[in-house]
């Protein structure tokens, strides 16, 4: 299955990645090769086969819903590239 460069650009948009023109070309070729290889999966009859999302039996363990201490704010903010007044600082999200 061959991808087009437009599809590669679309996937990069979905994945929030800026690609260089060289990367767009390289990924068009390499992803096509890999998807081509993965194409052999389509030849397997799986009409009666359930999917495996996890190898473990489905469990929903519960814990008591009690208040517990959480890490202090300054510890969490220590890794922030930018912060202000106890919050993560980011550039504008919406046009003003």
């Amino acid at each position, binding site marked *: 299955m061959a991808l087009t460069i437009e599809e590669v650009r679309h*996937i990069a948009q979905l*994945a*929030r*990645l800026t690609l260089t023109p060289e990367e767009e070309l390289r990924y068009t070729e390499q992803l096509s090769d*890999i998807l081509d290889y*993965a194409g052999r999966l*389509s030849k397997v009859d*799986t009409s009666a086969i359930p999917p495996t999302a996890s190898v473990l039996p489905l469990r929903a363990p519960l814990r008591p819903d009690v208040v517990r201490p959480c890490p202090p704010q300054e510890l969490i903010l220590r*890794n922030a*590239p930018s912060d202000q007044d106890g919050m993560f600082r980011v550039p504008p999200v919406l046009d003003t």
Partner: protein
Amino acid sequence: MTDLADLTLLEAATALRSGDVSSRELTQACLERIEALEPKIHAFLSLTPDLALKQAEDADRRLSEWRKESVDPPPLTWGIPMAIKDVLCIEGVPTTCGSRILEGFRPPYTATSVERLISSGAVVLGKTNTDEFAMGSSTENSAYGPTLNPWDLTRVPGGSSGGSAASVAANVCYAALGTDTGGSVRQPASFCGVTGIKTSYGRVSRYGLIAYGSSLDTVGALAHSAADLLPIFHVISGHDPLDSTSMPEPVPNIALDDTDLTGLRIGVPKEYFIEGMQGEVETAVQEAVRVLESLGAVAREISLPHTDLALPVYYIIAPAEASANLARYDAVRYGPRIEAEDLRGQYFATRGALFGQEVKRRIMLGTYALSAGYYDAYYGQAQKVRTLIKDDFESAFKEVDLIACPVAPTTAFRIGEHSEDPLSMYLEDVFTLPANLAGVPGIAFPIGFDTDRLPIGMQLNAPHLGEAILFKTTYAYQEATSWHKERPSL
């Protein structure tokens, strides 16, 4: 006296208990050896000598109390210097996943597996090199440069736990933690001539392991032998309330005191001997199976009929999970930021510039496989074929106790050999991926050398939560042979 760093983990533990050496002396021996060998092999991304010496002194204090009070002996990990793969968080210690996008990140908490080792007295020497976000089979995808194989500095150590494998092979630590999503403990163990355990999915908590493929990721360990690995397995395994996929089942207390394998049924899957594999690897595996037979095991050929589909299944499912997991790198809460006009632009600029080629390739592949119109054909279909692969193992384990097979089709390849062709690199994982897809445990250990004196490894797989049989069988093999005692000359 020999260099302290040349002791095995159990020899070091025995010397510590008797008071012949101190943890501080062991730690200093390792740190000196690291300083001497790092310029050659580049196994570490960061070192923690101050932390290590403090932990060693604490360990020594407790050891002398223990000796005076002669109460229960400490765990065998007590006072033992180890290395930790740089995808496992340690509070306050740089944790990069081999990526520039986590440059400078110091986690506010410690991974459960590491926490348990530290609580059991282990000394942390530093963080080992890895393919970026554990995506790779050679450690060449590290943003901080490759690790080199101690047996031949022109070759890769395997990956992604290449730094951990090389550090154990070079005797700069007694053991190391690694992680295995598609073979990342077993394949580097094989390439570096050490023993590596990939635990069952759910056996060891993933809390604090920076996620790559969440349904496949496992924590494991590398050392020189099954006997050296066992105390680490006992410490890191078991339920953790912080990981809902960690299993509540009790961890078996495994004893290695018997080398008689009488009655053990071993299956050798015919699909694991493929065209194009290195002949010496095939021969060595057959010879190693004969050794197990001489110890009483009964081997026979079996079939895992869907083996050839493991690679395409893995390279849909793992990238799909990775594309979701790596969406968190948004330059808002941690990591460096490439400034842009608006938030959206910042996402694109930072991710585009700071993720490496292989990581971007897998994010793209996974995003595509999950995207509207392609989900059923790729991700959905891969999940169904995964069921067939899992069923292969379940059927096989009705007839045999253990599966014996090669770890990789070749011994360590040259630096750069696969760098232009990602698919040829992926093919290196062909024998290790199935265990991750099925969630079963595996162990890799040295069984010989090829004509270039590069280590050859063999893999054993057992049913889910069946690590005991892996340890016992490997122990029996290692009591009967000496391949695991060979060391590279550096």
